[in-house]
Structure formats: structure tokens, C-alpha cells
């Protein structure tokens, strides 16, 4: 009988083994981390989406400011 590891990488196999309730809680935790890092709630630009509007304003952080300042950037 196939095991999840036969099909997907370990990280996904671990995720599959969680109960739905555990996945929900883990997702809530990730949301908090994402928002604390200044993550935006605006949609990702997705040109394949029927709802994509190229004229829509670009994404901003949820509260209008990010929780993280970029101190250094790479060359790209």
C-alpha cells in the first residue's frame, strides 16, 4: 500500500497526516506570522483569474504599514 511519502515530499506528508482541526489551527498560526511580517491581504496578481483587474491599485499592507523594515536588498 502506498504511503504519503511515496507520492509527496515529507513536508506535505506531514501536512496530510494532520487532522482537519490541526490544519485549521496551523493555518491560523501561519496567518498571525504572515500578518506580523507585514503581509498583505490584497490578492496576488493572477492574470488567469476572471477577476484580475490590471488597473487595480497595487497591494498594500493590511494596516497601511508593514511590520518589517527592509534593511538591505540583494541585487535583483
Amino acid at each position, binding site marked *: 500500500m502506498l504511503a504519503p511519502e511515496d507520492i509527496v515530499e515529507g513536508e506535505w506528508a506531514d501536512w496530510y497526516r494532520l487532522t482537519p482541526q490541526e490544519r485549521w489551527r496551523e493555518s491560523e498560526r501561519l496567518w498571525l506570522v504572515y500578518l506580523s511580517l507585514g503581509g498583505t491581504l490584497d490578492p496576488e496578481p493572477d492574470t488567469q*483569474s476572471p477577476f484580475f483587474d490590471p488597473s487595480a491599485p497595487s497591494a498594500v499592507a493590511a494596516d497601511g504599514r508593514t511590520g518589517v523594515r527592509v534593511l538591505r536588498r540583494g541585487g535583483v
Partner: protein
Amino acid sequence: MGGQACVFYGAAEFSRDTDFAIVANPSNLDRLQSALSELQAEVIAVPPFSIDFLNRGHAIHFRCNSPDALGMRIDVMAKMRGVDDFSLLWERRTEIELAEHGQIALLVAVMGIEDLVRAKKTQRDKDWPMVRRLVEAHYFGHRHEASAARIDFWLQELRTTEILIEIVRRYEAAIPHALAKRSLLQHAIEGNQDALTAALREEEDIERAADRAYWTPLRAELERLRHAR
């Protein structure tokens, strides 16, 4: 019915909004409007919030402005391509309790996985890995409690060649019925992984094309509405 439902069923998606499938009738829209008012939600894109647009298959997009939900986005739909009417969706829903500090805080209805999988068969690249993961996770989570309905669901919706080849051998009695609805299972029966992969890709292409065709007039209508603003 969107990203949170995918998380619940095992296909992680970092969702930035909350999607609701609703029944679009005047009394229900009144109730929805009350809830949206509490959240100080405003429509942020075309089309406007109306029963006509919902019944034609459009989504209405909101952003919340209340302090406890600041910036949260809500999408509302009443019709989706390839998905049954709301009454059947409601019958097949999963209900979960969201507990807070050990107390039952909220009862949430999540779209049933078979309907979520159908709703995710869109023209977008990002939805197809999600479909595969949703059904994989369901299979690994329930294969030791395989009912006839679950076996049929797996045979109709799995997109993982290795598992399809495994289950056609295990559930031989279900194959004639399933094969009549999904001919690519013949490749799984023959153990022909290459042919099965190609047939799955073809199946996906057909769904994507159907979704593009479904959305063509709706996209044109959205475009007209944007220009009219």
C-alpha cells in the same frame, strides 16, 4: 469554500480572503447585508452587490473596515461552473466548531470536499495542484474507512497516477461503474502510467477550456463595468 476549505481538507493554500457560497434570494441577501454592515464591508471591485449579478455567476468582492477585521477580504458567489445548486451544496456541507479558549465559539459550514474539488477545476494553473492534493489527502486520511461513496469519489477525482493504479486493483467491484464515467481509468487498469498521465492532462485541458468559455461573457461584462466607472 475557498482557501480555508482547502486547508481544512489537507491541501494547504495561503488564503488571503474568505470565500462564501450563498443562496441568492432577497431575504438571504438582507441577512448577508446586515452581517457585512457589522464588518463595515465595502464593495471593492465590479460588479456591484446585486442579486442579478450573483445569479449570473459573478462574484462580489468586499473589504472589511471594522477594527477587528480590518483589511479582510470577502468574496461571495451564488453560482459556480460545474457545481450543483446551493441546496445540494448545503446538504453535503461539513460543519466545524471553532473553539476559543476551550469554549465553543462558532459553528462554520465548509463546502463538502466533492463540491470543493469541482469548484477548483478552473482555468487557473494554481488550482490544479490543489485539486490533486485535496483528493490525495482525502484518500490517505480515509482509505482505511473506504465506503462505496468514497471509493467512487477517489476513482472519479484522483489525479495521482500511482494511487489510481493502486486503487483500481483494490476496488475491482467498483470499476465497471466508475469506468463508464471516466474512461481514463482503463489506463490505470492496464498499469500504463504514461498513457494515464497524458489522459489526466487532457482531462485537465478540457476543464480549463470549458472554464474559459464559461467566463468569456462574464469577463466581457466585467470589462464593460470597469470602463463605465
